[in-house]
């Protein structure tokens, strides 16, 4: 603080501090507290707000248990509340997206960090970044076009005779998964790339010299070293996927439902912001708990990720 005042003067320093404080307080903390508070209050007509029925309860949170549907898991059929089913499918598919991002990003990250000619790496990184210059909405729509039944992907595969009739890509969660992997893979790639870049190449050579196979080198040397990068990439991809609304909305099918879409329905269709808030906080808390659990299982500390 003293340093800042000396460098920029009291006026400018005060302005910067005020702006940051305003941003944090008015745009982050207060809106969240307001939503959190309203999540415990019932959805009432305007005239009844503040009236005798306007009391705190967890009723909004309990609504996830309403309305069961038949669900089959491993050949067994259960009756599961529809919103809980949506929640678990969201978590399940977000995990799938995270794993797919890891499987795709790790070899690319290793290639960029250790195999590619260092001179060409900036160009390759730029090429990876170029798609980010286009809006996320446009990119999701582009995939919608690519994956369409009579779209370019099917035409290409048909012309190469790899398939004999068009594949319906936009069905169930398939297109949502493709879209999410595409949208968030760079959040996995860059932390892993950074982690592998910091690995001394001599370590890889030493392991090879001692007789290790390629798989063993990755399993014992490269993967353990890049664990913090993998963890931070996985946390980001998982949280962004579970919280994504755009991709599931555009690339979803009639049988796909993302938990964020349920929140949006409470908010926009039912106009019940109280229940919508309750659902949003459920998603936030449960995802955080899930991430913490997974980090504990893999023995990753928060400080590792922050590096």
């Amino acid at each position, binding site marked *: 603080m003293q340093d800042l005042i000396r460098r920029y003067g009291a006026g400018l320093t005060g302005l910067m501090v005020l702006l940051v404080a305003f941003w944090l307080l008015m745009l982050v903390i207060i809106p969240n507290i307001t939503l959190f508070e309203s999540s415990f209050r019932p959805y009432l007509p305007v005239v009844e707000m503040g009236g005798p029925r306007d009391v705190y309860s967890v009723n909004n949170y309990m609504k996830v248990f309403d309305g069961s549907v038949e669900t089959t898991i491993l050949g067994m059929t259960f009756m599961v509340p529809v919103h809980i089913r949506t929640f678990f499918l969201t978590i399940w598919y977000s995990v799938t997206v995270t794993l797919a991002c890891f499987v795709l990003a790790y070899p690319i990250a290793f290639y960029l960090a250790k195999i590619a000619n260092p001179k060409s790496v900036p160009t390759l990184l730029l090429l990876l970044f170029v798609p980010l210059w286009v809006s996320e909405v446009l990119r999701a729509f582009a995939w919608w076009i690519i994956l369409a039944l009579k779209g370019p992907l099917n035409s290409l595969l048909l012309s190469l005779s790899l398939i004999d009739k068009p594949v319906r890509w936009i069905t169930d969660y398939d297109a949502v998964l493709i879209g999410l992997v595409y949208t968030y893979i760079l959040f996995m790639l860059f932390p892993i790339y950074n982690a592998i870049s910091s690995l001394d190449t*001599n370590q890889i050579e*030493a392991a*090879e010299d001692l007789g290790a196979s390629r798989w063993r080198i990755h399993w014992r040397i490269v993967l353990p070293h890049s664990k913090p990068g993998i963890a931070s990439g996985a946390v980001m991809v998982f949280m962004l996927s579970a919280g994504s609304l755009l991709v599931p909305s555009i690339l979803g099918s009639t049988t796909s439902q993302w938990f964020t879409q349920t929140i949006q329905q409470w908010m926009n269709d039912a106009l019940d912001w109280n229940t919508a808030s309750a659902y949003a906080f459920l998603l936030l808390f449960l995802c955080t708990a899930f991430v913490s659990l997974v980090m504990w299982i893999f023995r990753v500390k928060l400080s590792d990720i922050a590096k």
Partner: protein
Amino acid sequence: MSAGIDLENVVCDFGSFRAVDHVNVSIKPGEFFSFLGPSGCGKTTILRMISGFTEPTQGVVRIGGVDVRGQRPNQRPTALIFQNLALFPLMTVAENIAFGLEVRGIDKAKRRARADELLRLVDLPGAADKYPSQLSGGQKQRVAIARALAVEPAVMLLDEPLSALDLKLRQHMRAELRAIQKRTGVTFIYITHDQGEALAMSDRVGVMSQGRIQQVADPREIYNNPVNGFVASFVGENNIFDGTVVNPAGGMASYETPLGTFRARLGELATGKGVKLFVRPEHTAISLTAAVENAVPVTISEVSFEGSFISVHGVAAGGKTLVAEIRNDGAATVPAIGSAAFMSFDPALGAILPDAETDR
């Protein structure tokens, strides 16, 4: 279980740069062999060609008589100790040492026993469960050696492993490395730019410059009978005289210089032009009369007391500075600065050699 190495006409090019230029060396099984040379002379490239990380552009590399071209590092019976040691920081010392056994599928108890045994060999018992970051420089060194020995290599390759240590520890580790080599009988190939290290540890030394081998010989021969000016200058200090050879006969010759005519040994390769006379400072004597052979009158300009020896600088006619080192036997008399004296050398200890690198 040690193997010899044969490099036959080995060439290695990186693009248009020739890092190693027609190198021919035979290293015997169980030998401690050093490649000595300035940085960029191609010695590390030779090491990488033996270990398999780099393939020669031309020529053959044989380990134990077997042509190993095309074999990956993990298929060769060599173990490399890296300049920065490259210990695995996320593994304990025991896991580091046993890594080579782990990849060979040896079970955990046996691995641990072997690691403990090797830790005793390198004189580091009780460090098994520490992490490399908890060890000192010298201890890390020992772990790296143990890790390389664990795979029972036929050849150990060491890439300036002592360069990161301080002077005292370096001298201690020299003796230690030599002792470990004798105990295990493994062929050691040692890369260094430190002539002291190479001379003190090796059975034989190969001096390199610009991708070429200049001389291969035992340390004494390298120091006392260097084949050319490069070797003479790289392994020690010299007083160098410029002149021409006259009357060569029986391995001796006269050498005419502006400071007078000297008698000296004629090097085998010293033919034609571009030859100079090299005399080591410790072979240069100081006297007050010109009664001895090969004497040059000088004015003493500088005397520095170095402990075990005294370094005396004298300026000869024409401003040329000569250096003499006198052994400090406790009674050595040192001329005063500014006084006149003569510097001289025994004809058998002066050598007329080609000035620069020679093709061999």
